[in-house]
Structure formats: C-alpha cells, structure tokens
C-alpha cells in the first residue's frame, strides 16, 4: 500500500516536471507546425486557439491532469492521433531492442565480472577488468559508431556478414546498447566476488573440501546475484535513454526516435506520454527487482 502511494507520487512528480520543463524550455509548437512561412499571424493564432494552446499554463496543466485521471493521454499536436496509439506503435521495436540489449549486458557483464573477480592477479583477469572499465567509460554514441564501423570493416572482407549491418538487423544495435551497460555490471560482480573470496564462509567451504573451480565460484557468486539483478533492473529502466542514441545511429524505429523528434518539434502531449511511460517502467522494474532478489536470496524474503 505504501509502495503504491510512493509510486503514484513518483509518477505525478515526473509528469508535472515534464509538463512545465517542456513548455519553458522548448519552443512554441505552432511555429514548428507552420515552418513554411505561409500562414499569417492571425491564422497562426487561430490554430493555437483550436489546439487549446492559448489558455494559461495552470489551466492547461489542470486539463492535462484531468485527462490523466480518466486514462487519456491526449492527442499529438501534429497528427491528431491519440498519444497512446502513437506510443504503442513504436513500443514493440524498442522492447525487442531493450530485451536483446539486456541479454547482451547480462552475458558480457557476467563473463567479464567473473573473469575479473576470480582471476584478479593474472593478466587474464586484469584484461577483463580493463575491458569492463573501458565499456563503462566510452559514451553510448561512440559505442554505436565503433560497433558499426567494426562490423562494416569486417563485412567488407566477408560479404556474407553484410546483412548484419542493415538496419533491420537487431544484432549490432543490441551489442552497442548492451556493451554500454555491461561494464558497470561487471564492476558490481567483480567487487562482490573479490569481497566474498576473502569472506569466512568461503574459507569454511574450502575447509569442507569444495575444490577451487566452478563450484567455488558459484559459492562466491550467489550472494552477489541479487545486487546484479537489481542493477540490471535499474539499467532496464534507463534503457529508454540508451535507445535514443542507438535507434538514431542504426536507423531503427522506436520510442527513442519518437522522443527526440517530439521534443524537437514541441509535440508536448507525446513527450508527456513517453515520460509517464518511462516513470511507470522505472517504478515497476524496481518492484520486480526486489521480488527477484528475494527469490534468489532467501535472506531477503520477509520472515514468515
């Protein structure tokens, strides 16, 4: 019950911030609508009135909140389509990209983290650790371009790889998106492993005769996993931000593209809808992360 209240408060804060920030920061949507120099000032004012943009800001805000309570997100100023339909049309593509990106992040992050945390003194471990640092440090836009460049160079010598570089292919965008999140995940796992290898319970396990190898790593890894899962869940919530760059560079459809173009042309209702969606996803993934962590780690379950 309390969590529901907090969640609603978060959503309200997010949409309110989006409502006012957009109107103060972005330009007048009417001048974007009429970017061809054809309309007279009177015609522009008439359009403003018919779209309800001439009423004072507090009135527009109350109208917007009223719509939300009825489950209405409004209509795009440009296409007059409902915001829900506009977003739904783009959501599938972003969802596929996000899931594939998360898979890449989980696989790469886990591999790098285990390598760096287990073989911390060897060259192998240090290389893994540096790679993780590198993946965290380079900006998403650069990752995209690097991945695209590497794939194109490869495809020039092996033409059968060419289809992978096309915009329908999910592989490269997922790699670019996933690599960006994998570095931080690897760090989480690495530091957890390093702590646990020195912990008394692992010494006890060794004393019980658990040989160094996969079983011992599993012993050390298990307590780290809840943290890793919460971390991935947080990343999932932030993926909408990551897809903005990835979708633009790889010419894919999706919510990121919709968000950028809607901000640039001042299509407030669509941006507000997307912010609300992001806030909902953020809240839900937190709940999901808590639940998942409790399944993996019995210590986190509420005591019966």
């Amino acid at each position, binding site marked *: 019950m309390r969590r529901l209240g907090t969640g609603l408060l978060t959503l309200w804060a997010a949409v309110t911030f989006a409502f006012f920030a957009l109107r103060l920061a972005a*330009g*007048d*949507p009417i*001048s*974007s*609508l*009429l*970017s*061809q*120099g*054809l*309309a*007279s*000032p009177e*015609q*522009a004012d008439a*359009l403003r009135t*018919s779209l309800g943009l001439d009423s004072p800001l507090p009135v527009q805000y109350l109208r917007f909140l009223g719509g939300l309570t009825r489950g209405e997100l409004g*209509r*795009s100023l*440009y*296409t*007059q*389509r*409902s915001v829900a339909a*506009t977003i739904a*049309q*783009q959501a599938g593509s972003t969802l*596929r990209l996000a899931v*594939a990106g998360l*898979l890449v992040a989980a*696989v790469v992050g886990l591999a790098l983290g285990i390598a760096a945390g287990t073989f911390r003194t060897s060259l192998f471990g240090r290389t893994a650790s540096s790679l993780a640092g590198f993946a965290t440090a380079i900006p998403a836009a650069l990752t995209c371009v690097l991945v*695209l460049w590497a794939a*194109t160079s490869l*495809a020039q010598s092996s033409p059968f790889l*060419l*289809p*992978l*570089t096309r*915009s*329908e*292919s*999910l*592989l490269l965008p*997922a790699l670019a998106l996933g690599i960006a999140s994998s570095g931080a995940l690897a760090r989480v796992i690495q530091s957890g492993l390093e702590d646990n290898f020195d912990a008394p319970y692992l010494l006890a396990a060794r004393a019980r005769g658990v040989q160094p190898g996969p079983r011992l790593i599993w012993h050390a890894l298990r307590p780290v996993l809840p943290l890793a899962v919460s971390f991935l869940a947080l990343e999932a919530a932030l993926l909408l931000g990551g897809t903005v760059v990835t*979708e633009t*560079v*790889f*010419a*894919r*459809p*999706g919510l990121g*593209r*919709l968000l950028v*173009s*809607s901000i*640039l*042309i*001042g*299509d407030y209702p669509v941006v507000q809808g997307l912010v609300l969606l992001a806030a909902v996803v953020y809240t839900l993934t937190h709940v999901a992360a808590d639940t998942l962590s409790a399944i993996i780690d019995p210590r986190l379950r509420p005591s019966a």
Partner: protein
Amino acid sequence: MNLRRRFPFLACTALLLAACTPEEDASTTLNYGLTLAPTGIDPHLNASAELGIPLTSVYDTLVVQDPATGEILPGLAERWEVSADGRDYTFHLRDGVRFHDGTTFDAADVVANLDYTVNPDNHSQKAVFMLGPYELAEAVDASTVIIHLSQPFPPLLDSLAQVYLGMASPEALDAWGPAEYQFHQIGTGPYRFVEYVPYDHLTLEKNPDYAWAPQIYQQAGPYYDRIVFRFYEDPATRALALENGEVDVLGEIPPLEAERLDALPEFTLRPVAIPGQPMQFLFNTARPPTNDPEVRRALIEAVDRKAIVDTIFGEHSWVAEGPLSRNMWGYADGVSFPAYDPESAQRRLEQAGWILGDEGRRSRDGVPLSLTVVTPNWGNHPEVSQLLAAAWEAIGAEVQIETAPGFGLLKEASDQGDYSLIGINFFGTDPDLLRPMFTSSGLYNWMNVSDPALDAVLSQAATTAASQSDRQALYADAARAIRDQALILPIRDYVDLVVADNRAGGLAFSYQGWFPLLHDLHPGP
C-alpha cells in the same frame, strides 16, 4: 548434459540471429532512403517536405509543373480558364480516372478534397495556406469544377500542382478521419500506398491501372512493382546504407562522402538544385550596429562567400546572389550582392565612426562593434557561422554565435530580438514565399524591415499582377531593393546531393526539387 548447460547461450544466439534475418528482396523492389522521419504524412494536413518524396507518386494533381521550367501543364484537369478578374478558376477534368480503391474521380471529389483541407477542425499546417484567399469550390457538372477566390491570387496554379493539394478519395478521407487517414491514403497516382510504420518504413506498390499519366513522365508505365522507403536521420550512416545495398537512392549525402561514392563504378552522384530561398542570414535592422545600412554593407563585403561555399559545400554549390535561388523563375538575373572586398569594408566602418582601437577591435563612442549571430543547428548553418565570425573578427568586430536547435527555438530567438543576424530560409516554387519575410507585417519579418515600397511590390506581385512576366519584373524590383538596403547576406543556393546506384536509372525530380518522379525509375545507369 553438456548441451543443457549451454542452452541459455544457444538460446540467446538463436534469438539474435533469428532477429536479424534479412527480408526477401526481389529484383522488382526499389529501396529509397529518406533523411527525415516526418511527423504526420497526410499531405493535406502536414507540412513536411519529406512526405512528398513518396506521396507525389500516390496522388495526381489538377495541374502539374514541367520539371525543368516550372510551366503549368494539364494534370487531372485537361484544361482550365481563369476569369478576367482573376478570382474564378474553372477546371475541366479528364474522364476515366479511378482512385486506388476503384471509385471514379469526378468534380464532386475535387470539392470534397478542398473542403477537407480548409476544414478548421482538421488543422491543416500547409495546404490550407497554399490556397491563399480561397472562398469555395463548386462542381458545375461531373467534369467541371470552379474554384472561387475572394481576391486574385496568381500562385494558385503552382499550389494546385503540388502534392499538398493532391486528389484523395473522399470515401477514404471520410472513413478514416484526419488522425488515421495518413496510414490509409488513397489517390489516383502511378503508385498506391500500402503501408506506413513511422520511423521504420513506408511501402508503395505499382498501380497497374494507371492510364492517365501527365506528359511530364517519359516512360510508358512504372517499372518497379514495389518501392520501400526507410529513414536515415544520422548523416554519418547514409553512405553506409548505400554501400551495404540497403538502399538504392539516398539524398542529403555529406559532400565528402558524396564525392567518394561518385568515384565508385556502382554509384552516380546527382546534385539537385532546390528552388526557394538560398541559405541566408537576415540582418536585424532594428538594433545597433546592424540598423546602419553602411555597417551591413561592410559586413557583406568582409565575407568571401565563394571561399565559404567551396570550403563547406564543395564543388556542387553556387554562391547565392539574391533572395531567391537562381534555378527558379522570379530570380533576378544580373542582381548581385557586393563582392569580397575587405579594404572597402574597413573604409565603410571607419566612415561610419567605428574606429579601430587597441587589440584590433573597433568601437564607436566607447561602444564596441559587437555582433550576435543566431544560427539554426541544421543544414551546415553552424559551420558557416564560424567562418562568418572569423571574417568579421578580422575587420575588428566581436562576434557571438548562438545556436538554436529546432525551428521553434529559432522562432523564439527571433521574437526576443537580441540578434544582429539570424539564419533562416524557406523552400518553394512560387516567389510569393518572399512575402511573409520581407513585408512589414510578415510573420517571418525577422529583419524588422518596414519599407512601404517593398510591401507594395510584393503584394502587387502576388495579387493584381496580370501575367507571369509582370510578376517576374516585380520580383526583380524586390531583389534590387533587398540588395540596395543590404537586408540579407545570401550564402549558397541549396543543392541536394543525391547518390543512386545502377538500379535507379531515369532518376529525375519534379520542379519542386525534393520529389522524385518514381514513375520513370528503371534498372540501368
């Protein structure tokens, strides 16, 4: 056991591979790259230029424009008459034209289309304004329609030749309504609309019944069965899309990439001049120091416009010499802006009282010569602004550049008025596009110019002028006035660098510049 352990990995790999299987690609499909993902693609309601690239071939228009000269030729109307007072246009329509949904096209459909466009509830963003002083349309009989205007408006025929006033099936307009019609467009053109998924693709299919082609088309009928459009907004990825075979035609290629691709045997570079206004900067005549015409002249002379164009746009662009680009009618031949002459620029500033002080900076009565340039963040404006700033610093000015990302913010900066120069231009095929910018009450009069003589010339050219040659003379007067008062700094006529592979033979563009004649595309160079 081993396989089971590996299962998650195999599953992930399979998932990724399955997701990247390419679509089937028949030799009768042409792939066309677009550079902007438009917001809303109903040409009757939305204003984007990009939407016309596919949709010009979905709709026929009452009249068409000769791609080379802009001359108005018969389209869905076989012939037309204009009343003596210039207020009534009577169109006689062709017989036997059918929409893609099978219904017959007649005069009532023209009326229904115009009603849809001017209906205030539909919020048309461009087409309604192209109709100017439109009053109403009436169907006299099945093949005759009259458009009444409240006052003469010579640009009307030009407007009616554009996709924004293309003829749609009224049944479809009614059935889908203004919000959903853009996904279900029905015209009478050589290609029919199949599917549009925003930011992803738009598909057209050949109209096998197309037997009413206007004379602008060369080929007997469309060649390609399907044309699929995709969107490449990031300029850095456009050359790649051509090279990996994803698209056959793509415009707005960055100059260096365009020249590199042109050198390859499988690609051809097609520079396409776009009519309208050139890339230009408007002087703010209401704010010092650019309120002084001598300062404006000095600033124009201080700039080596040819060097700027060569540096940024390469060999395929011309230096602009007026408020209109040279490939459109209305361009004033022989009117040119002051040439590069930094000494003369320095002299002018000296005489206007801007004295060179320490550190090479000019000032007058203790006020430094300080310029603020507001630049759009698109179309190489920022790069050009940097070179302009360097040229003006060389003659002793201080220059600040402010970048406006997006048209809305550019408009906002213009409303605030804190600039010496601001970059903006509009494309279009009728010189009447000068009116909103250069008349004192114009919506885009960002120069704050107020010249009754210029107002009269531009208004006369768009209303009472009887013939195109009368209008031509008036626009030449306007170009001279704009040059003499040094209201703008024109930089470069816009050229779209289109690169096509050898599947896009016969690639040609409408007079409007951006819109390809898809009907004539065929394999071959």
